[in-house]
């Protein structure tokens, strides 16, 4: 993916750029809002990572401006402070996701990947299909290997989120934010519990575990074709 990083903190910028480059992305960098705006206007990017606090034109201003110009590139905001309503402000300005510094690189990478491969509305079919798993969004039904799976509404949303990001790492916080709308870190193993329940409902003996655990990072829905 081609990624634009607008970050004035040199150390963070290097850390993020190095990590993303190692993952095979192409990263352009800007150290202030004006340069960032210039780059964003000139070239198409898959994802933009924008620090909220920038010298000169701040992150919110940059994103508002490029949105005003009709650029639809997904934007991930970075911020130094976990402001209570900073998140809402960021989203209102046209940001798509929000990450508080300091962050684990895996968290950032997972979010960037999720943003970059976000299916656009046109690609949204009424049925999601991953391997032998099938989800009918309009009829709210799930079928695995021809067997119907009964899910609670929230479990349905959890599986839907995983199925919309097949093969990608989905972190615990991403699930909390997108599935349950929780914007804090619970101190109990709620996500783990829900995942293990979903696994129990989806998989039975002889079938593969569809939801893999990525140790210390999150989960991944297997994108492999079903074994014959």
């Amino acid at each position: 993916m081609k990624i634009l990083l607008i970050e004035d903190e040199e150390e963070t910028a290097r850390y993020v750029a190095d990590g993303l480059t190692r993952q095979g992305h192409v990263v352009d960098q800007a150290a202030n809002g004006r340069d960032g705006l210039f780059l964003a206007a000139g070239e198409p990017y898959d994802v933009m990572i924008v620090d909220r606090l920038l010298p000169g034109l701040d992150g919110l201003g940059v994103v508002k401006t490029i949105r005003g110009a009709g650029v639809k590139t997904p934007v991930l905001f970075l911020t130094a402070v976990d402001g209570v309503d900073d998140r809402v402000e960021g989203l209102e300005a046209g940001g798509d996701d929000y990450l508080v510094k300091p962050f684990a690189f895996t968290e950032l990478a997972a979010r960037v990947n999720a943003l970059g491969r976000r299916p656009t509305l046109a690609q949204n079919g009424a049925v999601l299909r991953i391997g032998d798993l099938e989800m009918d969004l309009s009829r709210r039904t799930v079928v695995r290997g021809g067997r119907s799976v009964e899910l609670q509404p929230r479990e349905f949303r959890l599986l839907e989120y995983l199925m919309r990001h097949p093969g990608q790492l989905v972190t615990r916080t991403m699930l909390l934010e997108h599935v349950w709308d929780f914007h804090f870190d619970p101190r109990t193993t709620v996500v783990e519990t829900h995942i293990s329940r979903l696994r129990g409902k989806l998989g039975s003996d002889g079938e593969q575990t569809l939801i893999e655990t990525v140790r210390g990072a999150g989960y991944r829905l297997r994108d492999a074709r079903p074994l014959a």
Partner: protein
Amino acid sequence: MRVHWPDLVRTTSFRLALLYAGLFAVSALTLFAVIYWAATATLVDQIDAGLEAERAALEAQSSVGGTAEMQDAVTEHMRRPGNRFHYRLQDTSGRLLAGDLPPEAARHPGYHDMERPPDRAGRADADNIPRQIRAFAEALPDGAFLVIAEDAHALDELRELIARAFAWGAGATLLLAALGGGVMSAGVLRRVEAINRASERVMAGDLTRRIPVRAQSRAGDEFDRLAVNLNRMLDRIEGLVEGLRQVSTDIAHDLRTPLGRLRRTLETARDGAPEGADPDYLAQIDRALGEADALLTTFGALLRIAQIEAGAARRGFGPIDLSAVLEAVLEVYGPAAEEKGQTLAGRLTPGIAVIGDRALLTQMVANLVENAIRHGPAGTRIELVLMPPSGNRGVEVTVSDDGPGIPEGERGNVFRRFYRLDSSRGTPGNGLGLALVAAITELHGITIRLTDNTPHGLSVRLAFAIRPTEVVEGSFGRDRI
């Protein structure tokens, strides 16, 4: 402000007013005594002079000195038109020789006042003699006794007039002094009350509150000076508290950067580990990363509390479906409780809306439910109840469990930052969960109360203020706890 009379009577200024009235009354009394004495003395002198002149006239007419001449003189004077005197001339045996005064008028020689008792019929002046008289008596050389008297009614009237005037004057003075004292006290009390109210608000935690000072043009009395001084003191206290808060926030903020760097370095070390590295070595790095994350979480929570306390989030307030928030918390934590062998149940009235910050209210309820799950043993029953407003009470949320509970003496402490019960020191946690809950309730005007749950356990009651709530649609499950 309403002035309460019992309060008023206790005030210093009222007592001063009363003392002032007392002193004033004493000086008025002295004045009265002087006026009374001077006025009556003058009148007495006048009467006495008249009596003396009459005696001299009588004596001149009976210059021979005989009792018979005196008898004639008295009789002649009595017949004179316009005579205002009364007389009694008696011989040594007390027999009346001339005059109209009764026998009791003949007393010792010299001047004296006399009040005649009413006669049997009850009429004092049946014999045409006034009741109040001032008399002059004199023994004549031959043993006869002469009494000359004048009506002293005017003297009596004067005395009465002065006394009445004084009584009215003193009464009015005392009344005015009391009223003036009351008005003065009320004015003073009002200003003292303003200072009291402001200091109560400050003690309740509103450090931005100041004592009202009157407009500059009218300012300058002692109360204004006191208010200005107290306000300066409050400025200083606010500055100090703000500084303290700022320091802890700054520490949390400033330490996040090096901690983040540490975290980053550890991450780089782990990710850059050579193929086939010692798994123990990698596990150590993972543990260090976990520690760094825990520290960052603690600092994050501290900053969040500071930010909520600063009231910044109020900008993001809006109507929120509280029922849906609690429903989500139930749904998220239900399985986690089950996994620990506990039950999490809810009795939620649907469609309850409140004004607030959705994310914060979710976290508030989630923290309380988490606490119950984490500190309760297997088998603990946790219940989440949402009740609609009724009567004079607003929306109420109750999180109760039959776990170990919190000892009564500790209940005030658990909302303090980093405070942990001895019994929970073994469990993971940073001691900020309830401090955050307290900050969120404060921001939303929610009253939080910890009580015993019967037969044991803890019940946390969150009472929303009445004003911003409304029931969106029909409700069921209104049964009381």
